[in-house]
């Protein structure tokens, strides 16, 4: 009896592992293709029939792409947009998150509800009017236009996440600080924020990734190529006829790597934040 049960578990496990491998193959195929293709020479990548693996693996594409594409500029622009989004978003969301988590005021429910709903809107719904507004306030073709738009679309979710983190801090700690003579703002800066730091880091990383991955606002508001972030920069090259895919894929690898690493740090908190109270971190 016990033995058959053990066997059954073993059979299930091998079935599950096989299934997992098949599914992983499906989910990771493009990344596999990227990894092998970026190591191919130009001749190899345009060979018919295609090779699975590079015959003479080379890292030359990385130096080629660095020299032929303005890749350094794209990186710098992505960084400016992502960090700018983080700065603006944090500056706006932290006080708001504290207010909804800690203070009593009429209209709180409505505000939380409104933030939750706007979080779901597509940038496309407002991109036309944003475009006109951005022209009117002379921000067209500036990083700031993209930063503002990204901050608008990250703020609601971040306030919700911070609401969760701040609510989790026992009220007694804040009260103790205030009895010791801290003002509310002082208590927020000196007591609440340090305790909520891990949560704050999560929202900062989330916002950074959002800014790094922006495509639609850069596409709509940036007009000169030397301001393009990586997403737009690479897209522009995909659109060209005589495109060197092996170099482009090397660039894609470099563009993906930073956000991939950052994402792994926050994925659990993101999932629980998105799914509401039902899923715990």
């Amino acid at each position: 009896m016990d033995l058959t049960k053990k066997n059954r578990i073993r059979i299930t496990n091998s079935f599950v592992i096989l299934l997992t491998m098949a599914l992983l193959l499906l989910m990771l195929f493009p990344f596999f293709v990227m990894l092998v293709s970026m190591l191919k020479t130009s001749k190899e990548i345009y060979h018919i029939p295609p090779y699975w693996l590079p015959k003479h693996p080379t890292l030359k594409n990385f130096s080629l792409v660095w020299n032929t594409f303005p890749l350094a500029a794209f990186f710098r622009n992505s960084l400016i947009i992502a960090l700018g989004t983080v700065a603006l978003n944090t500056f706006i969301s932290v006080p708001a998150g504290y207010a909804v988590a800690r203070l009593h005021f009429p209209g709180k429910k409505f505000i939380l509800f409104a933030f939750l709903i706007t979080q779901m809107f597509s940038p496309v719904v407002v991109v036309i009017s944003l475009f006109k507004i951005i022209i009117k306030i002379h921000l067209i073709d500036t990083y700031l236009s993209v930063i503002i738009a990204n901050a608008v679309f990250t703020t609601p979710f971040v306030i919700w996440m911070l609401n969760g983190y701040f609510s989790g801090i026992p009220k007694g700690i804040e009260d103790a600080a205030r009895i010791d003579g801290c003002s509310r703002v002082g208590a927020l800066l000196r007591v609440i924020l340090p305790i909520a730091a891990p949560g704050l880091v999560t929202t900062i990383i989330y916002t950074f990734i959002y800014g790094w991955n922006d495509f639609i606002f850069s596409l709509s508001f940036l007009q000169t190529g030397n301001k393009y972030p990586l997403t737009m920069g690479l897209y522009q090259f995909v659109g060209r006829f005589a495109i060197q895919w092996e170099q482009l894929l090397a660039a894609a690898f470099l563009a993906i790597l930073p956000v991939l690493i950052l994402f792994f740090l926050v994925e659990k908190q993101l999932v629980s934040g998105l799914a509401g109270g039902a899923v715990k971190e």
Partner: protein
Amino acid sequence: MSDTTLTLRNRKIKGEAALAYALLAPAVLLMLIFMVYPIFYVFVISLFKTNKLAKIQSFDGFKIYAELLSSKDTWIVIGRSMLWTVLGVTTKTIFGLIIALSLNVKYVGRKISRLLFIVPWASSIPISVMLWQWVVHSEFGLLNHTLRLIGVMNPPVWLGQAGTAFLSCMWVDIWLGIPFMALVFLAAMQAVPQTLYEAAEIDGASRSQKFKYVTLPGIAAILLVATLLSSLWTFNDFNTVYILTKGGPAGSTNILITYVYMNSFEWLKWQKASALSIFTFLILSTVSVLYARIYFKREEM
């Protein structure tokens, strides 16, 4: 005596509310100026004839709405968006469930599998979409190479024909959405108390019975939230279609979200695009309100 404490208390509450509004002001202003006002503004634009520079010309009333509602193209695009969303979310849910179930079994290497499944979601989405463009390349792509190897003599030019282009876009969107579903379902499954499974086992439940009577009810609530959320994201997926096909060939892959964008920034029909934005807004608000209500209930529990 009690009067003074009451006024003191009142004053404290008032002070607290004032502080709250002050702290909320930047966020609320940002949303009012760059989200609420633009929605109102896009509605205003839709009531006016516009030139190519998106400048408002002359008042046109609701004519564009009547025009759009009686145009076959509008309904084709809306219908395609619905098909896109329903098929996309269904497939994501099924794959998500299968992956979550397989990750819920204990074996060596499970943690690594879990991490690897996240990669499509964790990568930069616009760039992942560009990767697919190379993967499905008709001559040099490894997808068609694989198909030729297994005996498909003339694999399709995926992005070159209406049907296969739509399928390709749909698959890429599905592929992007699967990891989130899998992770949420896995987290929900792991929250189902182990004792329930043990009890079911004692009662002699089979594996499929355990899934049907323990797992599914255990994750039902989260299933609802996740599918709603996924519907919004799927409906909103601009990157996939724009980057892969720009809605082509011949408009055959446009969904509402890309149709709005093509009409505005590409074809410069700003009035029409604005009216279509309002359609999109109405559809999105309906689903978001539904999602927000459910989310609120869960938060309060």
